[in-house]
């Protein structure tokens, strides 16, 4: 992509967002598989609407379709921000059905899950390019954040000039290291949390209101 075209697209996106200030923003929850994206989406949705977004699982690629929860109104400091949250499938560059056999899955089910997972990843990439106004990037703080998928996705988000909030999830686990994530992405603010236990959600909501309000 040429520099001029890239600049034109960026300026167009920024002005679109400025003039759409009052429109409800769609915030995509992105990250690698098993980072806790759906657990977070459910936590936010349950806290503010009473409903869940989708099923959670320890098996990777449980979420294979982007799911949108509309009209999530978050109140902070007397102000309220209303967003749509979009829970997206975990992004990867490879899918092998044999990975699912390790979770006692029948071969046919594993193959079907793989097929749906590949479709889901492609769908997530499309949403990122076309249909979200901001990103919550969720990382498992017990895992190494210096992966190619993380580097590429954060680069794609930055190139789209989308506001991004990085969340270091699973701080309830002993092996968690929030600092490792801060070191990996020093250009962005990193907020620690446990979506499962609900730890530090107050700060998460403050930052959501600040970044996406």
């Amino acid at each position: 992509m040429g520099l001029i075209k890239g600049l034109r697209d960026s300026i167009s996106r920024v002005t679109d967002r400025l003039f759409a200030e009052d429109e409800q923003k769609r915030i995509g929850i992105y990250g690698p598989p098993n980072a806790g994206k759906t657990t977070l989406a459910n936590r936010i949705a349950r806290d503010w609407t009473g409903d869940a977004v989708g099923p959670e699982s320890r098996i990777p690629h449980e979420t294979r379709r982007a799911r949108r929860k509309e009209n999530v109104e978050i109140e902070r400091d007397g102000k309220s921000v209303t967003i749509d949250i979009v829970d997206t499938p975990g992004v990867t560059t490879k899918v092998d059905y044999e990975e699912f056999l390790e979770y006692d899955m029948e071969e046919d089910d594993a193959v079907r899950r793989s097929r749906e997972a590949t479709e889901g990843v492609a769908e997530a990439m499309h949403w990122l390019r076309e249909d979200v106004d901001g990103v919550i990037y969720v990382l498992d703080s017990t895992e190494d954040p210096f992966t190619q998928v993380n580097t590429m996705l954060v680069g794609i988000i930055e190139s789209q000039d989308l506001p991004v909030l990085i969340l270091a999830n699973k701080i309830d686990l002993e092996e968690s290291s929030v600092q490792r994530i801060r070191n990996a992405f020093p250009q962005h603010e990193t907020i620690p949390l446990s979506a499962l236990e609900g730890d530090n959600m107050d700060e998460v909501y403050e930052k959501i209101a600040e970044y996406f309000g």
Partner: protein
Amino acid sequence: MPEARKPTDDPTGNGVRIDLISAQRMEELTSMEKVREILDGVREGNIVVLEEGLSPEEESRLIEVTMAEISPDRPDEFSGIEIETYPKTGTSESGLLGRLMGKESTPPLTVIGPADQIETLHKDETLISALVSRK
């Protein structure tokens, strides 16, 4: 589109082919042609090394097309790609402001291979170490 990319195949079948693609060659291609150039090579079992990596937009398309080409019921055929570049460090200058200031960074050297043949052993800001195996 540049001329045919395959000079000869490995006559013994014992080797792993590595294609080192120059920035100049990639510059002449459209985004989809770049993605095709990479995936055609990788699907043949080759390791593709790009002198200059892809733009974020092209990386996004590479992931999307890779997913579309995986055949879950035939994983021996193609189960995806392994891709590595040096991690970025410091403040990002790839956003709008960085580009306005003329600070658009050059995408770094990138190594791409079939997911079932290349395994990253170590990666940091200055070194990518990978193990490549025959299928």
